[in-house]
């Protein structure tokens, strides 16, 4: 069956226009290589989450997303993973062998050998190529979704394939394949409205190779996750520190903006009726993040500036407004008490290039991942009547040294030019 499909495609590519096999044929050919992965709580045997995975070796190795099995990695004592194929009730236990938390991949192994499996290899494809994504959306049974390959994401720190097609929860970890059964990527995320993302297969190839290499030893997975996040942040922070961001002008201040292509920046000015002040906001953030667990994401970096001005309030009223606005901090990093410690903050005053800031530096640590912190740095320019400038730099999942280095790098970029 495989060979038939393959040969027809070879034929098809030779003689344009391409003839695409019907979707039902693709489904029939490859559905038995895709499994449902279920994570259960060991105590209650209750289903905690579901996802998908696919066989990539005759020995029973499967590729899935790290986030599908994250609970098992983080709490092996409380959760276990199992797989089922098709509509079968029977499940088989899964062992997690290796993870790539930065690319949201995991290699798991089933004790039962599969009848057939996908062979992973790097692929190159033209934009617009038809892809078929397989998985178990919302636990409704195995499903196939047609879509198109739209190249790699621009403005992203990590490579992701832009897949135009509807991925739904539960399809995570399933393969997105070409008609002839070559895996292009692993279903990972969706932005809704047909905008979905795949992990390029190349990363799965590397992870599988590492896992299958003779010298491979399965270490404690939490430690593997910790190392990978440390490596990841080291990579992007050092790249950032070497950059010299362009400046944006805000009320006489020259401020850093979009330091790298993978940042998105927005600006907005606001003056509500009946309020005696106006605000101008400028913010930049990375789109990328690393899923660590259900309650914790990492690897994000963003910063914002807010200019506050008033021609109606008096100095004292303005100072009160400025205080209230500055003390309100939305960090949006999520995290639960079981994952992170509370924020601890140090307040002070910093003077750089003639500007005096009131500053706050806060960190919280990842409880299980030693050496990783979420950081919030805030500054408020003081000494200018009826003008306030607040700025904040937030980073999740960085080493303390990098948190400090980021603040130093950031503070270099402020100046006053009016």
């Amino acid at each position, binding site marked *: 069956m495989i060979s038939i499909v393959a040969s027809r495609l070879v034929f098809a590519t030779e003689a344009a226009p391409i003839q695409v096999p019907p979707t039902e044929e693709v489904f029939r050919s490859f559905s038995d290589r895709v499994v449902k992965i279920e994570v259960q709580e060991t105590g209650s045997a209750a289903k905690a989450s579901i996802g998908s995975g696919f066989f990539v070796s005759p020995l029973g190795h499967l590729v899935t997303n790290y986030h599908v099995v994250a609970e098992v990695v983080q709490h092996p004592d409380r959760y276990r993973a199992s797989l089922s194929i098709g509509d079968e009730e029977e499940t088989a236990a899964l062992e997690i062998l290796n993870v790539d938390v930065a690319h949201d991949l995991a290699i798991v192994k089933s004790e039962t050998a599969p009848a057939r499996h996908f062979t992973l290899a790097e692929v190159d494809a033209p934009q617009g190529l038809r892809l078929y994504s397989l998985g178990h959306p919302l636990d409704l049974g195995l499903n196939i979704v047609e879509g198109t390959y739209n190249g790699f994401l621009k403005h992203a720190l990590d490579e992701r394939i832009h897949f135009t097609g509807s991925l739904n929860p539960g399809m995570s970890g399933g393969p997105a394949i070409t008609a002839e059964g070559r895996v292009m990527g692993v279903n990972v995320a969706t932005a809704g409205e047909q905008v979905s993302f795949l992990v390029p297969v190349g990363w799965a190839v590397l992870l599988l190779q590492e896992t299958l290499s003779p010298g491979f030893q399965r270490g404690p997975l939490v430690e593997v996750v910790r190392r990978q996040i440390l490596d990841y942040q080291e990579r992007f922070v050092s790249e950032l520190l070497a950059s010299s961001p362009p400046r944006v002008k805000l009320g006489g201040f020259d401020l850093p903006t979009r330091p790298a292509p993978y940042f998105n920046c927005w600006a907005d000015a606001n003056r509500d009726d009946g*309020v*005696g*002040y106006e605000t101008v906001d400028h913010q930049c953030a990375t789109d990328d993040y690393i899923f660590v667990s259900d309650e914790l994401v990492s690897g994000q970096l963003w910063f914002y500036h807010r200019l506050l001005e008033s021609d109606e*309030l008096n*100095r*004292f*009223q*303005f*100072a*009160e*407004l*400025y*205080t*209230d606005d*500055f*003390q309100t*901090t939305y*960090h949006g990093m*999520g*995290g639960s*008490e*079981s*994952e*992170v*410690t*509370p*924020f*601890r*903050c*140090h*307040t*002070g*005053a*910093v*003077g*750089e290039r003639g500007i*005096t*800031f*009131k*500053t*706050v*530096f*806060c*960190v*919280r*640590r*990842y*409880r299980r991942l*030693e050496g990783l912190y979420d950081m*919030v740095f805030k500054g*408020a320019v*003081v*000494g200018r*009547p009826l003008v*306030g400038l607040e700025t904040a730099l937030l980073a999740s999942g960085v080493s*303390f040294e990098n948190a*400090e280095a980021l*603040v*130093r790098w950031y*503070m270099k970029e402020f100046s006053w030019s009016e």
Partner: protein
Amino acid sequence: MERVITVEVLDRRGRVRERVRLERLPAFVGRAYTNDVVLEDRFVSEQHCAIRETESGELSIEDLGSLNGVKVFTEIPSGSLTLRSGDRFRVGETLLRLVTATHPVAPAEPLPADEGGLLHALRDFRLALAVVIASLAIFSLEEYLTAYYDTGFMAVASPALLGLGALGLWSGIWAFVNRLLTHRFDYLRHLSCVCLAAVAYLLVESFSEYAEFIFSSERLGFAIRFIGGAATTYLLFSAHMAVIPASTRRLRRFWALGGTSLLLGLASLLSYTGPDDLVDEIPVRVPIKAVGASLILPQTTSEFLEGARWVRERADEEADKEDR
């Protein structure tokens, strides 16, 4: 030498209500106006008893056939009763005490120091009223200087009036206690005391915020607020107690201390918002003030970060302490 003998009419608590100096002996006690000591007590007979001097010069009391009799609180044989100075006896419902001129009295107590000071001056209701009105003006000014969303008259005046209302209620309680203990209200004096304390606390708080702004130390701010708050509260309680003239200095100190601890305890209970381990909040207190920025001694970014290293140690400790 003529003997000076006084009969004291006591109230139920044993305090002297009336003193009658006996002009002659024997002296008569009863309800009729012919008596030397005339009592208003329906359980007392017209001529109830007589106080006599015996041949040996002792004083004795004799029941003159009264309906309800005489009860003497001393060691005496029945019939004609011998009394010593300071002995008490009851006729009807009235308690009496007999004292002679040589009866010792307690030494004089010094006047409370604050009599004659501000508290004394506040007896003048015009001054007390002026204090209350000035305080209201200060509350309104404070309200006006911190209102940035709505600086309208009502937005500024209503919280100030509401605050004054709360202080008025507080003073009312004190005035009521005052009335119970000394039959006087002194409401305006109590109100002016608490207004002064509120203004003092406003100053303390403002001072602490400026200190935090300039020296970037939450601890310093907290210390100022705590010490200033405790001192203000103590002074307030002392003032209320002093306005009630029946209170002695020791009593005043006791209640002022007790009241301060109670109020501070209550305040800390009310401001306690659960254990300080909310991961979704960033606990910062960074007051920014309109003046004083030039007094700030800023650090370089590196110096600031060096000073901030402790947050890492704290976070590490907390992460290791309880690996959940």
